[in-house]
């Protein structure tokens, strides 16, 4: 094996390595958004499942006498969706999205105020003997 052959082989190997590197780069480019999307999703999913457990335990502790106020409160807090509505109404770059955001803010506000107020009215009526 003379020097020229050795040089040619080295060159071929180097080119193959370059190809491989390019393929790896492409694969990484392709995989990156998937990985980037999967990781926060798993994180959100973890939080979601943990919150389900917290909800399960907290709600079983609610006294049956207060199940109607419980529905009032949960109805009010489920309107926390207003957060998404505010972002759409306030930061959207299209008019149509702002209109949808505004409508959603209004509907959610009916629920938030209505839900908390009606719950307050209900709870104010629960009195102990002699009071």
């Amino acid at each position, binding site marked *: 094996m003379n020097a020229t052959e050795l040089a040619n082989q080295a060159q071929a190997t180097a080119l193959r390595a370059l190809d491989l590197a390019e393929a790896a780069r492409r694969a990484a480019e392709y995989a990156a958004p998937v990985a980037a999307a999967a990781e926060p999703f798993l994180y959100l999913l973890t939080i979601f499942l943990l919150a389900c457990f917290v909800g399960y335990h907290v709600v079983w502790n609610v006294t049956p*006498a207060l199940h109607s106020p419980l*529905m009032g409160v949960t*109805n009010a807090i489920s309107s926390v969706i207003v957060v998404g509505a505010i*972002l759409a109404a306030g930061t959207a770059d299209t008019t149509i999205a702002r209109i949808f955001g505004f409508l959603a803010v209004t509907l959610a506000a009916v*629920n938030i105020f209505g839900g908390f107020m009606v719950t307050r009215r209900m709870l104010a009526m629960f009195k102990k003997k002699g009071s």
Partner: protein
Amino acid sequence: MGQTLSTLAYLVSSVLFILALRGLSHPETSRRGNMFGMVGMGIAILATMFSKGMGFGGIALVIAGLAIGGTIGTIVAQRIQMTALPQLVAAFHSLVGMAAVFVAAGAFYAPMSFGIGTHEHIHAQSLIEMSLGVAIGAITFSGSVIAFAKLAGKMSGAPITFAGQHWLNLALGILLVILIIAFVATGSGVLFWLIALLSFALGFLLIIPIGGADMPVVVSMLNSYSGWAAAGIGFTIGNLLLIITGALVGASGAILSYIMCKGMNRSIINVLLGGFGSEGGAAAGGGGDADRPPVKAGSPEDAAYMMKNAQKIIVVPGYGMAVAQAQQVLREMADLLKKEGVEIKYAIHPVAGRMPGHMNVLLAEANVPYDEVFELEEINPEFADADVAFVIGANDVTNPAAKTDKSSAIYGMPILDVERAKTVFFIKRGMASGYAGVENELFFRPNTMMLFGDAKKVTQEIVQALQR
């Protein structure tokens, strides 16, 4: 407000919401709990309003929406009658559902605001989450509208059934899945609205076969859905607060549905398939009427005399009491009896009323102290040493056949053991069956005395007799 700061604010809100639910474990702590909930919501709204990219115009738009909605909500909440609470809650659920649809639409038409892509290309995963949010939101909306109409008497409470109903729903469900897949693949706006429309139809079709008396389950279930819809939107826009709150609400509604189903000894599937109470069920009682002993009827004066001389009375109120608006006069009767030294307790069946805990609120409104009101498990052992069980507006939940008669439609349902009391007074308009279409064996027991008439009128007559 920076990203970290608003995330922290959302975390505080989440904890406050959990504390709000935690407070409901006792009436004494519940008012503070509700306050925690309000503060949590306030923090969440402010943190979002001062987040990055909110212009002056945007803030003004948000404040306008909050002011309009807040005014409507406050007025409605102040004016609503407590008997109309179930339909109010159903109406509120429909608003959450619709808001979820609108937020998803907002995200679809302004993906950059939520960091889920550009107008030309929204991430596939976000499209999946978005379509789930829209579908659940739309089903919650139209389902709640039907529940509202049935509860408010704006449409018949009778189940609406037709041939092939469940197959139609199944077909529409499959079509919905196909639409969602196509939407994720193409990101087309037309498909977005088709998903919404189909889900509206599905919500409508899912609730119409369910009878008016099963509405407590439906309202709880829609409560759960509104939570899942919020969580779905939370996943779409990557917001932790929405996900946590959605999970809390979803779990709460699911547990309430379970409790309601157990109170009727039916599976959730059985309730959802619907049609219950549509047949006459005349034969369900079994046995001929000929061998039945005659029913004993009494007068309000008799009842007043016997109750005055009793030591312990357990009152069993049902929805009929609320319909007759008899709760105030019932409490007057209880006050008069208490002056005579009679011990009064109230027994509440889990499915009394038209939503979970409805009867407790109605009694509380009539100034009945909450420590005189007991749940089924607590009170059942006490009927044996009660002199009188006073049944007002309840029926099926007192039927002893649920314990013995395997052929009965309500067999296995937990009931209040009123028949163990020395005397049972049963207020009723006539001899008609309860909603389950089952005749109540209790009427024919030797220790039962029927008081025929309107619940309010009969109770008023008892009060007059007691005052004499």
